[in-house]
């Protein structure tokens, strides 16, 4: 077996210096700061960052010249932070020099696929050109493939994508995203695509505690607070809503808070003759939350 050739290099290598110089630390810190929970995801991102860092160091001593595979797949329910993590990943890749400019272009099927013959190729190529030098994030990528409809042009977009992912790895990193089960089925019928994905990251649903913490952050940012009773109501709300269909994690929490604000405003308006203080304007009461259909449905179900 051939010995790996290393160039003459000073005895010790400084991985920490590379880490500090590359701005990767900032990106990872931002990840910690901006996203609640997501422990397994953050761990995975740190692992990938470590791999890329070590790859870079290896290259400086002359090992393994081929570019490491970088395309990724993020699976999970909506509202679990996939786009945010993709942005941070773009920063990490840029900080380590794997992409030249580090911007993120986020698209769905409709941005890539045309409505008539000959429309798809230029559309896809335009998107790819705009994304070059950075990261292309394709949300709900499985919609590219619609085998039931023979006039569907998604396959053409997939072919072009495959070509670029293979031949222009220096120019573009692709991140596909969507529900796990659908993504698995998509990969089964597109083994070419599946084989080019190097890193799979799964985004689990937030725990109820994490969702509660997210809600607290959102409220603080909007300058609202919960009454004691409202706090209990919120916790209950989260438990119930999670069990219901179409739960979009952080997004659903956001929607619920927006609706609660609406109800608070109506409540204050109804009683506008009564004296008001600033505190009243800031406080969400239990009734603002309990008016939700989420509670009603549950009660109906138990009848």
């Amino acid at each position, binding site marked *: 077996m051939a010995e790996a050739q290393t160039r003459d290099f000073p005895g010790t290598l400084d991985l920490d210096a590379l880490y500090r110089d590359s701005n990767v630390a900032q990106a990872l810190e931002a990840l910690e700061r901006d996203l609640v929970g997501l422990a397994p995801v953050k761990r995975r991102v740190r692992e990938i960052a470590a791999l890329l860092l070590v790859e870079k160091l290896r290259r400086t001593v002359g090992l393994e010249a081929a570019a490491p595979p970088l395309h990724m797949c993020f699976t999970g329910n909506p509202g679990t932070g996939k786009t945010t993590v993709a942005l941070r990943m773009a920063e990490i890749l840029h900080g380590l020099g794997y992409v030249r*400019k580090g*911007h993120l272009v986020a698209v769905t099927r409709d941005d890539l696929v045309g409505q008539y013959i000959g429309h798809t190729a230029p559309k896809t190529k335009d998107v790819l*050109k*705009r994304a070059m*030098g*950075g990261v292309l994030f394709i949300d709900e990528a499985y919609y590219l493939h619609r085998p039931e409809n023979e006039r569907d042009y998604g396959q053409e977009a997939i072919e072009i994508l495959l070509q670029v992912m293979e031949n222009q790895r220096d120019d573009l990193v692709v991140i596909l995203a969507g529900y796990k089960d659908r993504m698995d089925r998509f990969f089964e019928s597109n083994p070419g695509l599946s084989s080019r994905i190097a890193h799979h990251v799964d985004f689990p649903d937030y725990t109820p505690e994490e969702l509660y913490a997210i809600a607290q952050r959102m409220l603080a940012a909007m300058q609202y607070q919960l009454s004691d009773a409202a706090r209990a109501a919120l916790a209950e709300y989260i438990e119930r809503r999670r069990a219901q269909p179409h739960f979009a994690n952080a997004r659903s929490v956001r929607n619920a808070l927006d609706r609660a604000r609406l109800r608070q405003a109506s409540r204050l308006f109804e009683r506008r003759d009564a004296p008001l203080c600033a505190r009243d304007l800031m406080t969400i009461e239990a009734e603002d939350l309990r008016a939700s259909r989420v509670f009603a449905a549950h009660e109906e179900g138990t009848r």
Partner: protein
Amino acid sequence: MRLTQGTFSFLPDLSDHEIRAQVDYALGQHWACSVEFTDDPHPRNSYWEMWGQPMFDLRDAAGVLEEIKACRAAHPQCYVKLNAFDATRGFETMRLSFIVQRPAAETRFTLEREEGAGRVQRYAMRRA
């Protein structure tokens, strides 16, 4: 004869690496790059053929280089040039334009003269 139109015609033909550097400069100035080709490089020909639309909103030169390569492959006997357009107020015009492919046999021009009154000549340039 070497056609000396474009910003860099007196230098040796730019390599793809050097073209990329110029495109990066143009993109950094937020100019839109476009590729054009022609077999009629007469200086009064203002309208070379467009190879696709001008590329707005690009961040990186890779896409532009791909288009240049594709245009060269499709029209190996044509002149191909790269333009960079600046849409800001006070300019709204090309800011950079240079040739990125020349045909193997470059176009030569001859000068035709039509004599008028008082030794006034009416000149025309024609392809040789």
